[in-house]
């Protein structure tokens, strides 16, 4: 028996903001000599696509601060109050919010999701795609990056049964 710690994560959300935690935690766990598995299911599946198009939607995140990635430090620290009538109805608002979040992250020296994802694979993190939700939502294996395993609840639970940390994200 090895005393290697094991991390098991279920990634169930595919927006830009919710896409970060699984890859941050799994890559860091691997960097700390732990084993890590991410099981991608439901809306987490698009995080495995070759071309990531994760966006963020302020309309569905009432507590999400809207920040500007440019201007003085004081200007950048302002939380812009965006009424739902605007965030939900103005065409292209999610695209703008996504662009602002990506730009802010870049300026703060935060890795992109693509970077973290490839570091996970480099460090030996296992990615398992949920076969059932792939069928339901019509995803094909060809759309996903190389190195993905395919399985269901039992595949995840077999690993998670021996995990020291299990997270549902």
């Amino acid at each position, binding site marked *: 028996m090895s005393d290697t710690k094991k991390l098991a994560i279920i990634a169930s959300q595919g927006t830009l903001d919710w896409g970060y935690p699984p890859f941050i935690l799994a890559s860091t766990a*691997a*960097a*700390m000599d732990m084993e890590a598995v991410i099981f991608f299911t439901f809306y987490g599946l698009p995080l495995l696509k070759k071309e990531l198009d994760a966006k963020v939607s302020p309309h569905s995140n009432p507590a999400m601060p809207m920040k500007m990635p440019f201007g003085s430090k004081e200007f950048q620290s302002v939380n812009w109050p965006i009424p739902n009538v605007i965030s939900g109805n103005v065409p292209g608002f999610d695209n703008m919010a996504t662009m602002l979040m990506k730009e802010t992250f870049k300026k*703060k020296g*935060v890795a992109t999701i693509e970077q973290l994802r490839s570091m996970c694979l480099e460090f030996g993190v296992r990615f398992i795609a949920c076969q059932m939700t792939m069928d339901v939502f019509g995803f094909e294996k060809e759309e996903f990056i190389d190195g993905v395993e395919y399985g269901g609840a039992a595949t995840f639970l077999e690993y998670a049964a021996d995990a020291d940390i299990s997270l549902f994200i």
Partner: protein
Amino acid sequence: MSEMASTMELNCEGLNCPLPILKTKKAIDSLNSGEILKMTATDPGSVNDMASWAKRTGHELVAHTEASNVHTFFIRKK
């Protein structure tokens, strides 16, 4: 500033969590046991993170200094 000799230097200034840890792991992997990595970072969170990382992995955090918001870590590979 510590004048400790290092085998390799890694600049993580301007990078944010978890990149300094991930890059440190990659750098340490390329060293031999006993060799020293010097890593610099500006992320204030890296102070606690480096201590936790070292505790978990067993690599020795030999020294940590801070000057004008730049943190310098010396890590000896186990």
